[in-house]
């Protein structure tokens, strides 16, 4: 149970984070600074270790594992394969009494997210290498890593939900202790908002739980289980009427949708995001945008779509409308923002809309595109926020209008801004474009001329990004114009660690744009497996 | 022999009187006495039951109930004393530090 690499990836960082935190906390004040330096290095090394572990897992796809031939509900590094028997045998049960098991595994949907998380953690540490109280800061990030990976690997809804909520806590503290001026409000809003939404999701999960009976399983007080694979085995055959029939499936789907949509976030439950982002520290924003938003999309796919395909088909229109509104509305609101980070935050709303759209096309291509969007946005949006963070750090302001010609003073920053902005507006050969193309192709096949809306949004996206660049790093004449918040200090360029972190992100954004098949193929195989094994039947039964 | 029914009815009447008294009176001591009236109604019922069924336990219950009532009065008075020493009043509606 604990020899599984995924278990290590999940629990390792949480425990290590705790340990480091305690050490940093217990350090004698006189040596605190010194010890904190070492701890920071250790944490960084630890996160690199995890990254290499996940990368090795990926590299095994060239020797051992074939991601592209995984069947639906088949996972690699599964510690509890054939759950019904395994759990009964006690191999992986966590609490028998109500059917909770420690069941982890990854497939083409979750592995990219796991890898992304392990990648982003060291990078976000790097970018905020010199954070105040660095040891605590970095240990919080490390804990966050464990929780995030836990969300992506756990195949037990109880554990999933636990990790889901657990991610809030480090983030909450990151915002609270390292955030901007208005951090209290933002952290509260962030917490309340996502928590409330996840409560509805929890209701959905519980309903599913109540319908997942495990008769053979002794010692289970409630006679039910949270295991996803057990649910899937009853849900994938349409005739068995998972959740007691279509009506309940629809209801549960809606509940889950609310929970996940708020996390993604989708209009109209998105308003926590800008506030949280604006106030969060850079690393916090990076992780928030890079991974936490993906949790919503991931959960939506893994639970709502995979287990309730019928309801998904039923609510296709709703998904499209939600996605479309998020996309267009988010982009339009971006155009009206004056704060750099706020604008970037809304652009996340806009991009996440594409994920709903991609899923709603119900084409394997579209779903794969949506998954790739998660990955691509997971690399590009941290890049965006790293740039914003550099502005905040070195120029102490994020107001778009307050500075001009910054590229003159900070050429590296200007270059990174350019690269990040271009990546986000869907420049070809960067990761975002792949997802956009895949989703759009599928979208046309499914909905035809409605594609005009997302397409025109691309123009708006370009408009707000270019506009913001023009007003910050460009213009300003030969002298440039420094923001007042600099108080006449000498402007400086990004520091080496920020630069390094952003470079890595840029490289990955480009590598995944040029060679997307690295991850796209496994996503494609997952989505194809799902569509051909499940969705086709559903479509043929439900749609007419 | 008085029929048990009469006793029980008297008990019921006493109980109602006590209950009415409890929430119409504002003075703590009077309220306490009303509670005592209610407890006496209970005693009457037990007695009636004991009579009716010829069961000795009923008498035992009565005796213990009286003891309970006594204990209750003792506790109640102690509390009222403490209250009076801090507020100089035992009029219930004047003691309203804690509300909402």
């Amino acid at each position, binding site marked *: 149970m604990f020899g599984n690499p995924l278990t290590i990836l999940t629990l390792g960082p949480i425990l290590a984070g705790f340990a480091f935190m305690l050490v940093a906390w217990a350090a004698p004040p006189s040596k605190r600074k010194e010890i904190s330096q070492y701890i920071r290095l250790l944490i960084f090394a630890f996160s690199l270790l995890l990254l290499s572990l996940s990368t090795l897992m990926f590299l095994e796809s060239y020797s051992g594992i074939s991601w592209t031939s995984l069947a639906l509900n088949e996972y690699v590094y599964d510690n509890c394969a054939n759950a019904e028997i395994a759990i009964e045998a006690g191999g992986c049960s*966590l*609490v*028998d*009494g*109500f059917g909770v098991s420690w069941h982890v595994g990854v497939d083409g949907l979750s592995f990219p997210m796991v890898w992304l998380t392990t990648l982003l953690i060291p990078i976000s540490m790097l970018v905020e290498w010199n954070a105040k109280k660095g040891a605590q800061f970095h240990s919080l990030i490390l804990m966050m890593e464990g929780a995030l990976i836990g969300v992506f690997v756990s195949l037990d809804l109880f554990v999933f939900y*636990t990790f889901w909520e657990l991610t809030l806590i480090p983030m*909450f503290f990151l915002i*609270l202790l390292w955030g901007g001026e208005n951090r*209290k409000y933002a*952290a*509260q809003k962030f917490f309340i908002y996502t928590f*409330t939404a996840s*409560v509805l999701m*929890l209701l959905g999960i*519980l309903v599913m739980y*109540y319908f997942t009976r495990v008769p053979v399983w002794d*010692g289970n*007080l*409630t006679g039910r289980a949270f295991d996803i694979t057990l649910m899937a085995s009853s849900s994938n055959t349409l005739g068995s009427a998972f*959740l*007691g*029939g279509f*009506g*309940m499936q*629809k*209801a549960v789907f809606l509940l889950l949708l609310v929970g996940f949509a708020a996390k993604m976030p989708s209009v109209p439950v998105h308003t926590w995001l800008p506030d949280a982002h604006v106030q969060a520290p850079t690393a916090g924003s990076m992780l928030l945008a890079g991974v936490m938003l993906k949790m919503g999309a991931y959960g939506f796919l893994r639970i709502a779509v995979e287990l309730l395909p019928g309801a998904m088909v039923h609510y296709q229109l709703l998904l499209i409308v939600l996605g479309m509104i998020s996309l267009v509305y988010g982009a339009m609101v971006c155009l009206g923002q004056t704060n750099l980070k706020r604008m970037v935050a809304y652009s996340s709303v806009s991009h996440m809309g594409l994920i709903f759209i991609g899923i709603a096309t119900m084409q394997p291509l579209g779903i794969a595109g949506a998954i790739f969007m998660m990955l691509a946005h997971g690399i590009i949006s941290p890049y965006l926020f790293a740039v914003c963070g550099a502005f905040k750090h070195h120029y102490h302001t994020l107001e778009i209008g307050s500075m001009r010609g910054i590229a003159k003073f900070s050429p590296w920053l200007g270059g990174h801004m350019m690269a990040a902005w271009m990546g986000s507006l869907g420049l070809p050969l960067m990761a975002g474009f792949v997802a956009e193309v895949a989703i759009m192709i599928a979208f046309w096949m499914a909905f035809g001329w409605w594609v005009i809306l997302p397409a025109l949004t691309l123009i708006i996206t370009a408009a707000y990004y270019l506009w913001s660049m023009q007003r910050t790093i460009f213009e300003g004449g030969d002298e440039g114009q420094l923001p007042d918040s600099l108080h006449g200090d000498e402007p400086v360029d990004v520091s080496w660690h920020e630069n390094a972190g952003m470079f890595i992100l840029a490289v990955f954004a480009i590598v995944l744009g040029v060679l997307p098949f690295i991850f796209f193929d496994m996503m494609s195989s997952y989505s194809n497996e799902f569509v051909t094994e499940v969705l086709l039947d559903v479509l043929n039964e439900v749609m007419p | 022999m008085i029929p048990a029914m009469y006793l029980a009815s008297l008990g019921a009447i006493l*109980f109602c009187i*006590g209950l009415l008294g409890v929430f119409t009176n504002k003075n*703590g001591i009077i309220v306490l006495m009303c*509670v005592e009236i*209610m*407890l006496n*109604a*209970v*005693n009457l*019922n*037990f007695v*009636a*039951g004991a009579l*009716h069924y010829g*069961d000795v*336990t009923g008498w035992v*219950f009565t005796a213990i109930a009286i003891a*309970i009532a006594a*204990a*209750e009065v003792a*506790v*109640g008075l*102690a*509390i*009222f004393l*403490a*209250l009076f020493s*801090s*507020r100089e009043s*035992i009029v*219930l509606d004047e*003691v309203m*530090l*804690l509300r909402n």
Partner: protein
Amino acid sequence: MSTLTLISDPQTATALLPEFTLIVGIALLILIPNLGKGTFRLPIPNTNIRIPYLFGGERFAFTSSPRIPGVISVFTLLFSTALALWSQMEEPLSDSNVWCIATTGEAFNSCAGMIEPSLLKIDGFSRLLEIVFYGALMLCGVAMWSRMPATPRFMIHAQVLAGRREDERIAKLLDNRRQVDFHILLLMVALGMSVVVLANDLFVLFIGLELASLSSYVLVAFMKENDEAPEAGMKYFIVGSVASAVGLYGISLLYLWNGNLQISELASSWQAMDSIDPLALAGLAFIVVTIGFKVSAAPFHLAAPDAYSGASSPVAGVLATASKAMGFVVLLRVLVSITMPESGEAFWVPVVGLLAAVTMTWGNFGALSSESPKRMLAYSSVAHAGYLLAAVAALGLNTSREGDHVVAELIVAAMLFHLTVLVLFKLGSFLVLSMLESEGRGSKLEDLYGLAKREPLIATALFIFMLSLAGVPPLSGFLSKLLLVSGIVDATVHNSMTFDDGVIAAIRSLHWVFLLALFVFLNSALSLFYYLRVGWVMFFEDPPTRKRLVYAPFLRITLMLCMVGTLAFGIGPLADHLLTLVSNAAETFFG
């Protein structure tokens, strides 16, 4: 029955060991602090031969230490808990672990074969609840170690600093005396509660109830130095005594109806009734009112917020946990053991269901904008009573499900689980408040401001307690609610149920008690807001002072244990153990 038999019969003595321990504890509490250099002068004229009898006079410094009473009571409770737990370690389900104490004082292994009426019944169910009571009271005792009396002590300390050693001695003695009073009352509550849960006769049960209640009235009013405690005690007493009177009246009515208050006899008479006798019905209703007061169910809960906020925090915690558990035991005894029909729905389901819905909603809305953490916890306690009442309502449906799980047992197990873990996090949060109280704060939300900056660990603990109260996975508060809702769902939804025509239609076709499950859920969601608010005033706001809280090592350790327990009983092997324990207890409840 003679007292002598009670003690001399080895079986009885063994069976009632925890209770006897309590009595011994009370005796020690009276004796030990009074040990002193008391001497007895021999009545021989002109001589001054004094024979020391170690009682009275100038007290020994050690025995008059203000810590001693607390230590005695806590260890007594600890010992009792251990004994109770130990009695359940082996073969919890076999008859050899069930004892019935007859009126003669003899103990029998099987209650069924007894000829004489039995007074007390000892089984897994009662033992588990005893553990809950003792545990809660023990926590209360630990919290009281270092802070009694609350406010004056600080004044005396100031004088001590001024060099008045004499006053210090007086203060210590005063402290000691008050400690003794307090802890005796505490053990009395324990004894009363034990009797309630052991009772096999409605009147015995009521005596236990009165013993516990009367002691707790005094405990609420105990901190008479501040203005609020006597008021709280008064309100609690007035409403409580009226409630007891009403309940006792109800019992007397049952006596009138049946001529016997043995629970088993009442049950068989009830079953034999063709139509329900109004006398019995009225009696039952009156008892329910008393219980409503005890568990603070709406609309009988109104005194509870006042009492909780006026009482010192540990006492309030006891009221919210042990007292409530006791109330539910009575409820189960009365409603399930006596009036549950062989098959079909019990007649009281609508009443309890309605009570549940009103209670949880009222409680949560009351707590939502509450500015005092104690009042907030009081209202939350009301809400929790509502959740448990919902489970009772589901129990009343008397559903039997195919397969090896018995719905009723699940529900009772869920309730027991809830009551058990509630001690950890509900009382735990009161303990945190009690730390604040010892510096004169704790009655306003502002007092919690910035607690995280002063005491990060304590604040974290309180935060976890809050989350657990709200029912956030994987904390035990979630598990307990999950089990409760599972019970309700199992009782109302059947395996063959289909939801093809839409959820609303399906729910309408279900028994309305199912809606209570939704109510539980929605209310939990609502409750999240006020629990979280406590969390963030601790983490966000600036503290009024940077000072550390009172140094109370044992209390701190206890708090940490509560925190760990809150987590560990939610997920992991410990949760499994507890689940086994409660499910066994539930099984023995149904005998």
